[in-house]
């Protein structure tokens, strides 16, 4: 299905049951609906126990859904065919220590259905790309966490997947390695690969993900583009020459000095809060009439981390979260 979303999930629920005598049940997912368009880097966020791992495991058919539907490129995720063009890096993966990096890639590549000829061609390329070319003959048991993580990524890429699931890919990786992984993800996105990222490192997610969803208590509480979600509603960042105090006073609190300095000397940063577009233009007209020169005007953004903390700290569990439903954390 060429037009199908890379990942589509409809009304997905999962209840874990445990205990033989006293049956206990935990609802890990509660009617989750979301969609990931092909060719995007998508971040799934949420506090511990929100249901992120369950969600990924259902998409990989490692865990069976209690109800609802999940599909990868339109193919039900419960069929092996859905996983033919898929790569996966689990959070705590462990490769057999007695194998060399190259042997790991050969065996796991074989399991992914990659032919011998393709493996012979791709393995040296991938080892080079993840910076392990010189360690291809080394046994995995001697690898650091970061090296094992990079080998895991190479393993996930061996079948040239259209969809890549990465669970905490930068865990244990040093800052340089993290940047390499980030560059690799952007390179994959440019090639049309969809990346589904599950990470606690929100700064990393913010740098690469164009779309995110936030799960809380098994429900999607927010989802949409990173740009829209992190934009603070109707608050604008204005960089301009110094604004006279009387003008600021006249604007009656709709314009205030920002805490952060402007990058350029002689310029100041202000934040304008307005009801609508006309209100913003009114402020700008007033500034121009006061002889203020404007350098830039743009919607104010908060970091994804701030947004995330606002959302998980304040959100009541909703009945259902709709598609692309950005909401102001201030509202």
């Amino acid at each position, binding site marked *: 299905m060429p037009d199908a979303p890379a990942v589509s999930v409809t009304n997905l629920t999962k209840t*874990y049951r445990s205990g033989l005598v006293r049956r206990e049940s935990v609802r890990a997912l509660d009617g989750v609906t979301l969609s990931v368009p092909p060719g995007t880097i998508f971040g799934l966020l949420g506090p511990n126990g929100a249901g992120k791992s369950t969600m990924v495991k259902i998409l990989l058919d*490692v865990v069976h859904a209690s109800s609802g539907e999940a599909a990868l490129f339109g193919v039900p995720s419960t069929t092996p065919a859905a996983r033919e063009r898929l790569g996966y890096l689990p959070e705590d993966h462990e490769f057999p220590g007695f194998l060399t990096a190259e042997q790991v890639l050969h065996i796991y590549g074989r399991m992914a259905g990659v032919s011998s000829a393709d493996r012979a061609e791709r393995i040296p390329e991938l080892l080079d790309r993840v910076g392990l070319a010189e360690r291809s003959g080394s046994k995995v048991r001697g690898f650091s966490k970061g090296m094992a993580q990079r080998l895991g990524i190479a393993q996930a890429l061996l079948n040239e997947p259209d969809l890549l699931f990465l669970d905490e890919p930068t865990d244990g990786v040093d800052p340089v390695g993290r940047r390499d992984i980030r560059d690799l993800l952007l390179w994959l996105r440019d090639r049309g690969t969809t990346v589904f990222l599950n990470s606690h490192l929100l700064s990393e997610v913010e740098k690469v993900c164009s779309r995110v969803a936030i799960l809380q208590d098994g429900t999607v509480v927010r989802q949409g583009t990173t740009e829209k979600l992190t934009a603070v509603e109707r608050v604008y960042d204005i960089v301009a020459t110094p604004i006279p105090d009387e003008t600021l006073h006249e604007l009656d609190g709709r314009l205030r000095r920002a805490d952060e300095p402007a990058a350029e000397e002689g310029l100041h940063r202000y934040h304008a809060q307005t009801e609508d577009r006309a209100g913003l233009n009114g402020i700008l007209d007033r500034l121009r009439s006061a002889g203020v020169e404007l350098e830039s005007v743009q919607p104010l953004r908060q970091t994804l981390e701030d947004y995330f903390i606002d959302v998980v700290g304040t959100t009541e569990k909703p009945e259902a979260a709709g598609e692309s439903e950005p909401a102001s954390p201030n509202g």
Partner: protein
Amino acid sequence: MISFSGILLLTMRELWAKKVVIGLFAVSSLVLISVAFALNLDVVDGSLASVRLFGQSEEAQISLEQLVFAIESVVAGAAYWIGILLALFASAPLFTTLVDEGHIDLLLSKPMARWKLLGGHVAGVWGTMLGLVVYLLGGVWLLMSIKSGVWNPQFLLAIFLVVGLFAVMYGVVVLIGTWTESTALSLIVTYGLIFVSLVLAGVNQITPQLSTGSRAVFYGLYHTLPNFAEVTTIVSSLARGKAVADWYPLVSSLLFGGAAYGIGAWIFQRRDF
């Protein structure tokens, strides 16, 4: 098929990295070397004149055929009891590793059905054990046959019995391992069943002493659980070139193994990892 061969290969590589398996291979090699070089048979006109073991010569008190059958029987018996117990000890942790978090989810993310994944693993374990048993028993059979001129093709069936009963007991490991993910419990139950089979082997002596109800329970266990100990008699008969009086212990054990794999596969297919 290529995915299946991947899990098969991984399982074999994992087993060959186990010290117990390497140890079994080394001991098998020592037995073969001993039979090849340390055991010398002086055969005159088709009869055994004398036997020299590690250079010590003994006048033959038994026939050549009896000696060959005795050696083959001892090796087959050792492979059956010691070999299977050690092979289970080596392979049981492998199954728990298979279903470990971080390993099983990576394997299940590959484009193959769960039954193929489990089948590839089981085939890898069986294949490795078959290789080891063929190496030891096949090697001993070939060397003894060449040295003595006494060819006992029936002995080769013992290879399949040893591997078959290992496979039956590994079915218990698969069942308990899938259910509980515990190596210790898998081995306790498996070795426990082997111990129980020693008691069940005395069915003809024990049941007359029991009350009607107890006898029914005993018979129930006898016909349900694997008759591991009784199958030794079949192995011994084959090694000695004798006709097998009763194949029932083998058949019932294989049925038990089939059921263990069937239930294990059913749980493996349905459970969340």
